[in-house]
């Protein structure tokens, strides 16, 4: 249904940030960040707490003005435009549903007072949007009469129904319990594919970012460390920070190796692979895999992720840990 509203921009970049900075009196929240989203892209912004993710979204939404730098939306600079004039829409972390309005009225809010939008159009589009997020039948409920997952969907429908050029999502899944979170993750992805609107998705959960995104930008202390496809970032991080943020890494003699790239055996494999000797310190059974931790001669710990039947080692047993040189992460810093 939304497909018919998609506009193909002459400019391929539906949203572009150029050297954006934001200084608060005692804090440089953003120190010059640049990235762009293409039409229909699922772009994630990840990073630890306080790194400036929300600040970035608030600048794009128009709730705050940047100290310097430029934001363009579909090729047009948005500097000075108030939030209600910007064609982006935000799904807030706590959803910010209007408590005095019903589900249907919440979704209709952004469609009212628009030129040329009749009552029946509003009704139809609200109906379609609610169907899209599988909330048909709950139109008359108030936000406090629906579940957390349903509230999240109302927030999505409310923002999508106004057909933003970009949908901004500030940790939309973080208020949900882990199981629902995984389910909503899938729904979010398929929803994004169907509506074809570019999503700028904030999270500090690396699994969420890796599984959902077309591209990811990793932020650290107000700067972007690296931008790339999930696989690129995971396998070819350019910095130690990115390598560690997106997954576990063992640092052995300056090289980074992911636990799942490490094999463990009693004898030295002598097959040309890199290897290091260690003593089994713990093994944790996790169902589908087992985590084995070994202590290396230099005192460091090294973890390996072994398949279900691959772990037959005793605690205290001397073992060899080995990996392909090609699996090593080559980071500069």
């Amino acid at each position, binding site marked *: 249904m939304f497909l018919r509203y998609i506009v193909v921009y002459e400019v391929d970049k539906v949203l572009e940030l150029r050297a954006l900075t934001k200084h608060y009196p005692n804090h440089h929240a953003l120190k010059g960040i640049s990235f762009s989203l293409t039409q229909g892209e699922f772009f994630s912004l990840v990073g630890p707490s306080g790194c400036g993710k929300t600040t970035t979204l608030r600048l794009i939404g128009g709730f705050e003005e940047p100290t310097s730098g430029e934001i363009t939306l579909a090729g047009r600079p948005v500097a000075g435009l108030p939030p*209600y004039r910007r064609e982006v829409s935000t799904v807030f972390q706590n959803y910010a549903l209007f408590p005095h309005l019903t589900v249907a009225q919440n979704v209709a809010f952004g469609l009212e007072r628009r030129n040329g939008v009749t009552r029946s159009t509003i009704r139809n589009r609200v109906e379609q949007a609610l169907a899209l997020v599988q909330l048909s039948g709950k139109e008359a409920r108030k936000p406090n009469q629906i579940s957390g997952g349903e509230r999240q969907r109302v927030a999505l429908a409310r*923002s999508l129904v106004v057909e933003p050029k970009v949908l901004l999502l500030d940790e939309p899944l973080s208020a949900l319990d882990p199981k629902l979170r995984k389910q909503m993750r899938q729904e979010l992805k398929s929803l994004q594919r169907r509506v074809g609107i570019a999503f700028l998705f904030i999270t500090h959960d690396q699994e969420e970012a890796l599984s959902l995104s077309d591209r990811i930008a990793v932020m650290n202390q107000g700067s972007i460390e690296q931008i790339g496809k999930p696989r690129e970032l995971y396998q070819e991080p350019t910095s130690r920070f990115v390598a560690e943020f997106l997954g576990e890494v063992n640092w052995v003699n300056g090289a980074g190796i992911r636990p799942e790239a490490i094999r463990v055996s009693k004898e030295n494999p002598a097959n040309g692979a890199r290897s290091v000797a260690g003593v089994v310190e713990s093994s944790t059974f996790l169902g589908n895999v087992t985590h084995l931790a070994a202590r290396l001669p230099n005192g460091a710990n090294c973890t390996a992720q072994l398949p279900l039947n691959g772990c037959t080692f005793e605690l205290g047993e001397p073992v060899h840990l080995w990996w392909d040189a090609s699996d090593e992460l080559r980071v500069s810093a």
Partner: protein
Amino acid sequence: MKHLRAAFLAPGVAVMAILFFAPLLIVLAYSLLTRGAYGGVVPPWTGESYARVFDPLYGEILYRSVWIAGVSTALCLALGFPLALYIARAARHKGLLLNLVMLPFWTSFLIRTYAWMFLLRDTGLINSMLLSLHVIREPLPLLFNTGAVILGLVYGYLPFMVLPLYATLEKLDPYLLDAAADLGAAPFVTVWRVVVPLAKPGMVAGCLLVFIPCLGAYLTPDLMGGGKTVMAGNLVQNQFTTARDWPFGAAVSLVLMVLVLVVTRALMRRTEELL
């Protein structure tokens, strides 16, 4: 547990019984007796005073009281809402601003009303200034009329509107305002569609806190109305003093009370529906 609860309740109940219900019963009794020749009340029991309350002459005074109190309340709301919203959304100095709102309470209402009279009377500050600047030739009739009474009431009761409004607006989730703007609502639309509906409990509380004392106001209409604009409060006072008709004065007070109860109930019910 039960004893403890009784122990906690007893003082309050006793105070209410002695200081509120007992006098109320006395007023009720007075209203049903006959007037004495030199004030006071004498038998026999009669409902005649109540019949007179609805006499057109007095009915008009009651009607005027409701009207003046209503207009004053509406003005307080119109002035108080933006003020309360501003203070609630202010980034800094909230405490200072609230204290400024309450500052007038530091001096007696009587003195502040006299101050207004000095400002407004024919030889007052405003008129003498306008006269000396030759803006006007005759003093403007600023005092001793209905407008002056409403001004005095609005001035006196505005803080009672601002404080409950502030309390509700202060609790308003600021993200709701962001969300409304995000969905394309200009600031005025956001206030009208989001802030006002969510501030209704505070608006109702503020309106009650202003309307009730305004309806029974005595000092302001007496001083600033100059005897011309008589409200129900002045009527009651009159009956107990110059007119020496205690039963009638008591009857008017009780009718006024019932009026207030009716308005309160209606407003309360509306709020419950909204919540």
